[in-house]
């Protein structure tokens, strides 16, 4: 009788871990979308309302971090890249949200290092969660979409200095891109940018 190693079990284990990570990624995506939605209320709010919004945003961000801590725990001693595809969408959406939050508060671009250390610091056990550079770049592309929406809203509110500020911040595709997924996202971003330019033009004339 031919026998094989414990294939069904170990395969089962892998499948289960992947399922758990996919679920956490989905939860992260949903929570991040909610956070972005909240942040869009910030520009048109009064000062005191604004403070409340940012307090609430900070607390939502903290509760998203819990997802990353669970993922860190589940990935410990396992291969990060083997499961990367399972949680990458959630990471990108989270980055979109925190990049947006940082921009609203400080008008600067949140660095990858800061995003990573924020997650680590909030973890009671101090575990590191790795964010790949590709996810960071994809997150920036998504964030650009929010920036454009912000731009359009500022145009509608007649906040011309804000519009100028946003437009100057929008990265004018300075990179020469040689990656397919990223290239596609940046093409979409460029099309949105052209739309924003047209809106700004229409307000100008």
């Amino acid at each position: 009788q031919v026998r094989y190693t414990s294939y069904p079990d170990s395969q089962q284990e892998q499948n289960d871990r992947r399922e758990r990570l996919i679920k956490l990624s989905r939860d992260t995506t949903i929570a991040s979308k909610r956070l972005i939605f909240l942040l869009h209320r910030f520009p048109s709010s009064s000062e005191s309302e604004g403070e409340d919004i940012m307090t609430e945003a900070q607390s939502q961000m903290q509760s998203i971090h819990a997802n990353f801590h669970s993922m860190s725990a589940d990935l410990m001693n396992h291969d990060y890249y083997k499961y990367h595809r399972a949680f990458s969408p959630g990471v990108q959406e989270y980055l979109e949200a925190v990049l947006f939050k940082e921009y609203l508060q400080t008008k600067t671009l949140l660095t990858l290092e800061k995003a990573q250390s924020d997650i680590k610091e909030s973890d009671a056990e101090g575990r590191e969660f790795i964010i790949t550079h590709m996810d960071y770049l994809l997150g920036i592309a998504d964030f650009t979409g929010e920036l454009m929406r912000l731009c359009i809203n500022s145009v509608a509110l007649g906040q011309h200095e804000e519009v100028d500020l946003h437009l100057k911040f929008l990265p004018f595709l300075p990179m020469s891109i040689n990656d397919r997924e990223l290239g596609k996202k940046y093409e979409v971003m460029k099309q949105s940018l052209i739309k924003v330019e047209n809106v700004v033009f229409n307000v100008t004339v």
Partner: protein
Amino acid sequence: EAFSKCNEIMEAESKVREDMKPLIKEIERISRSMSATMQQIHGKISQIEEICDKALSQVPELQTNFVQLSNSIPKGMQYKYQMSWKHSLGQVVFVFVLSEWLKNNHLVKLETITERVLGAARDNGLSIELEDYLFGICSVPNELSRLCVNSVTASNYTLPLRISQFVGEIYAGFRLLNLKNDGLRKKYDGIKYDMKKIEEVVYDISI
């Protein structure tokens, strides 16, 4: 055995491709970078000349790679491999036509681009096909229709008029050609929409 010589021939051909590969990659990188640099004009209307110069400053490096490339291909076989650099040439033509017009207000000729981009590689049998030149020109009106919008936003009201005239000339120039290439004809048909956009901008600043 009929198979015996096959490996030799295949090795030789494979060697050519191996030699070409890093040069092609470098050519792709430079032309991508030139094209990306030109994108900056939309945000910095007042620094257009500097941006054009910055994009064109990479041409000598590009030429060096094309000359090396032409040396690595056996005589008479340039057309066999031309698909490998066709796309990059299209980008380069686009950058040349756009920047030369922005700086010096004239349509750069195919011969000029060939000389500056290929240099000695031309004597080794490389060429920019007329089709590549025309494809490159066809991409310019779309970029200019966008520039038209952004120059008005930046309070520059003379550039749109210049653009309107140039794109009109390009469109008229193509009309005289008896285009056989379907892809080219389609791109040319698309210029109409860029014209329309530009005309609307000119209309907006005229009223």
